[in-house]
């Protein structure tokens, strides 16, 4: 158990800590159910599961204030949406392509949006949302607001032209944005070291004068602290930040990926670092949690997800006319 974190446990409110754990649990149960429903053909197309990475979204987003801050994610976005406080009912309904989905059935897994909670969406094109996130930061700066933008993307996106162009401009324009690379080590089926000239991504901001840091993504509090630091610096000093948060996904890239590119041993070793279990043990060790309470929370999450599934099942298909809605604002 990372020593750093044990010391810091005292610095946090109990509610805050339990909130982190419960949100990670909710994401975990949600993703597991989504996977199950996909297998039952209730969900089709893409489904990129966040299982194993929960600490990143939860730790990061709990470090910001969504009333003034914004979140942009890529296609592995369910965790970010839930961490932003989006209603699991509405997210599951979107996966089910129903009219009550967050995007009225028109988006799907990769396009989770909750504008009110400043969850500015997932995006299906690798790296395409990175400049868009910076544009949102431009608005904050222009309007002299005190917000910050968190822009999440993966190790597969960090070599995209859009990443480099954006970091350059974010630096020139002094935009309040934190670029968060969730390095789960595999860009689809390719181990990141094979396709990266530099293996420490945190230095890649250096070409643009942007400070970078590597973070242990299985430790939710480490994530929280790192993002908080970078976010406040961006907010106050208008200096963008780059974080490489090292994490791991327990499932394949998507539902069609058998993930043969890694060994069982590797997977098992990371499962031992399950961020949920890590925090659970920390809290238990710190006397803030017992198994019974944990089980209650877990059951509550399972129930909440079951409700979401029921909600999605009962929700209606979008009527045919909606095909033509939301193409343009009339």
């Amino acid at each position, binding site marked *: 158990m990372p020593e750093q974190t044990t010391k810091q446990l005292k610095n946090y409110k109990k509610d805050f800590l339990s909130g982190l754990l419960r949100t990670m649990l909710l994401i975990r149960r949600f993703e597991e159910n989504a996977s199950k429903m996909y297998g039952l053909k209730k969900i089709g197309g893409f489904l990129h599961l966040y299982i194993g990475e929960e600490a990143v979204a939860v730790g990061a987003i709990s470090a910001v204030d969504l009333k003034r801050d914004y979140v942009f994610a890529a296609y592995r976005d369910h965790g970010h949406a839930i961490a932003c406080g989006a209603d699991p009912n509405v997210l599951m309904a979107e996966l089910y392509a129903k009219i009550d989905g967050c995007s*009225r059935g028109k988006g799907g897994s990769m396009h989770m949006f909750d504008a009110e909670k400043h969850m500015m969406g997932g995006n299906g094109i690798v790296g395409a949302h990175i400049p868009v996130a910076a*544009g949102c930061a431009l608005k904050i700066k222009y309007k002299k607001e005190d917000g910050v933008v968190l822009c999440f993307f993966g190790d597969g996106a960090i070599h995209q032209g859009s990443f480099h162009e954006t970091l350059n401009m974010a630096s020139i324009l002094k935009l309040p944005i934190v670029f968060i690379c969730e390095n789960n080590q595999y860009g689809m089926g390719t181990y990141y070291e094979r396709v990266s000239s530099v293996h420490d991504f945190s230095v890649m901001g250096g070409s643009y004068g942007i400070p970078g840091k590597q973070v242990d993504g299985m430790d939710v509090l480490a994530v929280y602290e790192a993002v908080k630091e970078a976010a406040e610096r961006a907010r106050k000093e208008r200096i963008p930040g780059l974080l490489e948060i090292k994490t791991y996904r327990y499932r394949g890239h998507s539902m069609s990926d058998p993930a043969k590119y890694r060994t069982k041993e590797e997977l098992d070793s990371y499962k031992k670092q399950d961020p949920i279990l890590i925090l659970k043990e920390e809290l238990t060790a710190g006397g803030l949690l017992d198994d019974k309470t944990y089980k209650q929370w877990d059951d509550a999450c399972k129930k909440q997800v079951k409700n979401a599934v029921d909600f999605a099942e009962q929700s209606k298909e979008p009527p045919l006319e909606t095909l033509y809605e939301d193409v*343009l604002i009339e």
Partner: protein
Amino acid sequence: MPKITFREALRQAMDEEMARDEDVILLGEEVALYNGAYKVSKGLYEKYGESRVIDTPITEEGFTGIGIGAAVAGLRPIVEWMTLNFSIQALDQVINNAAKMLYMSGGQLSVPIVFRGPNGPAEYLSSQHSQALQTIYTHIPGLKVVSPATPYDAKGLLKSAIRDNNPVVFMEAEMMYSWEGEVPEGEYLIPLGKADVKRQGKDVSVVTYAKPLRVVQEAARRLAGQGIELEIIDLRTLRPLDTQTVFASVQKTNRCVVVDEAWPVCGMASYVGYLVAHHCFDDLDAPVETVTGEDVPMPYNHTLELAVQPSVEKVINAVKKVMYL
């Protein structure tokens, strides 16, 4: 009424809209200190400052995406592409983000942005710098596409485009920037999606837009001398297309020629031609004729370059063909 250039008309439009709404900002290469590669944004930096008129590095994908992000977040940016040729690098942002954000988010996020710049061939610029790309943008649902041919239309349409809550691709032309025309001094807007009958005539409906308008007008002058009266319809907006004006004209003249600078394959001319053939079938005395750019990359040699583009002769020949002369 004062006569101003196309360039000045655009500048006035941006100036007026920036004065009217402080959410309007301009970003692009050379738009600020250089006063614009084609001087369209001249004086705006001095007037509105560096927070509103932003020089970007040469990163079309990046700054186009940033513009889209600013729009999504609530501003009303104008993104200037030095030429539409360079916009190809930003296509992913326009097509996958700008055009689809409203739809993908179920109506939650809108993109009130204008992408603008010169489109089509100029002179001696060769193939990579002479492309007329309206076909590509007009193809995409979720975008609006505007292509004016006069200073009057340019100003009124650009103002409307800036006020439109949807992503608008606004196409100008290097060769048109110095064209002059009468523009009223007061405030006026031209709605998107309305074509304009630039000349009334009884014999042939010639449908066109952008730079070829002058070629068509010259053809009309010459043909009038032979007793042939063209009706010229300037589409002005390509998406959404004002088909009613076109159909009403063809129902009157029974003959149609479509003139379009872009390449012929799957282009605007073929689409408008299909619409006319389909909706005005019983009114046509001859098949629809099209005059388009030649199906080749643009050559450097100027004579060849002119041969690639619609010309007065080509238009006259097409008119005579539909009149069986």
